[in-house]
């Protein structure tokens, strides 16, 4: 039968079990640490190469983070032969029908949208999940547009985006995420690259 449940016995038993468990977990953590880190970098690089033209640097080494609207937007800048080919902006929106949507938006240096990929979402299968590029053309209509003269809102609200039928909420959320990406890209990246004047009247007003 089991040992007597005296205070000493109980403390020693739990101590030994927790010690062995933590040693085991520590070992497995060490064993899998590199693999997990590699998977993470591969995922980000895949996401970046889905939305930008070919590049040869490792963009996840040089990340620009911006805290905005209660979460973080990440900007990865890709270069080829030391020349910047564009920036991939990992953006988000909290207004999706199923909550948060995380997306990767690729901008060329002049601010033009190259491609958009959806990283994670919980939209309704068959309706809102058409934001995924492989499912419908909704996503594709953004390609090659420059938000400078392309209003990121659905037509019903005076924008230039064709909403998905039956999924107005998801369509609006998608525009919201792209607009947030563009805002960070324009204010933080284009300015650094000296392209600010081309895009917005903001600096001219300051002059």
């Amino acid at each position: 039968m089991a040992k007597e449940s005296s205070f000493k016995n109980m403390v020693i038993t739990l101590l030994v079990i927790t010690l062995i468990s933590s040693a085991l977990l520590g070992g497995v953590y060490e064993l899998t640490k590199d693999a997990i880190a590699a998977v993470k970098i591969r995922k980000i690089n895949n996401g970046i190469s889905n939305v930008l033209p070919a590049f040869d640097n490792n963009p996840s080494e040089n990340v620009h983070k911006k805290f905005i609207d209660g979460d973080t937007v990440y900007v990865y800048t890709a270069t080829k032969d030391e020349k910047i080919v564009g920036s991939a902006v990992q953006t988000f929106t909290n207004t999706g029908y199923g909550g948060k949507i995380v997306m990767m938006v690729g901008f060329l240096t002049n601010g033009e949208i190259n491609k958009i990929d959806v990283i994670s979402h919980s939209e309704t299968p068959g309706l809102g999940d058409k934001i995924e590029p492989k499912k419908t053309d909704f996503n594709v209509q953004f390609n090659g547009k420059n938000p400078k003269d392309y209003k990121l809102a659905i037509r019903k609200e005076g924008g230039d985006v064709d909403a998905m039928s039956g999924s107005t909420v998801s369509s609006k959320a998608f525009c919201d995420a792209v607009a947030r990406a563009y805002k960070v890209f324009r204010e933080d990246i284009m300015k650094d690259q000296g392209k600010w004047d081309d895009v917005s009247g903001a600096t001219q007003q300051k002059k």
Partner: protein
Amino acid sequence: MMKKRIQIILRGIFKENPAFVLLLGMCPTLATTSSAINGLSMGLATTFTLMLSNLTISLISKLIPNKVRIPSYIIIIASFVTVIDLLMAGFLPDIHSQLGIFIPLITVNCIVFARAESFASKNGALDSISDGLGIGLGFTLALTALGFVRELLGAYSIFGYKLNGITFLESLPSDGIIIFILAPGAFIALAYLIVLFNMLKNKLIKNN
């Protein structure tokens, strides 16, 4: 002895199938079975946890004072689940991101805990491993079957391979009966599978 262990394994798969007969672990059963491969991976991860936790608990249950046995079991189970979670994150990243939160939730899957408390703590090591294997395979079978049916009806595909040319009924939607991928479809499919499984099981038992 060998015969007894095979019986223990078979009992877990048929007579006491956790999902179809005991109706334990319904949360992962309903939530992770939107495709056959997801159901299969979830089932195998649970099987692995069950075998390890059953083995460990059967070996050390005599050393654990009665009053702290439940916290001890929880620590042991949680540790194994974390090991599996880390291994999957490192080496099977695609399946890991599909199953997401449900891997760490194996910890509180009542099947694992029920087997520890009702079987492993009272039986020997080999019997306990057999029990873990049997119950785990039963769970895997149930999840895979449910995932298979839902994927077939909801996305017209089998283990990820799209079936083309489903045009025998003009009134069917062209890319899947979406409700079967959604939560209500899980309940509907599960109910029919339980009926089917128990009919077959009763027939088998009568014949033997």
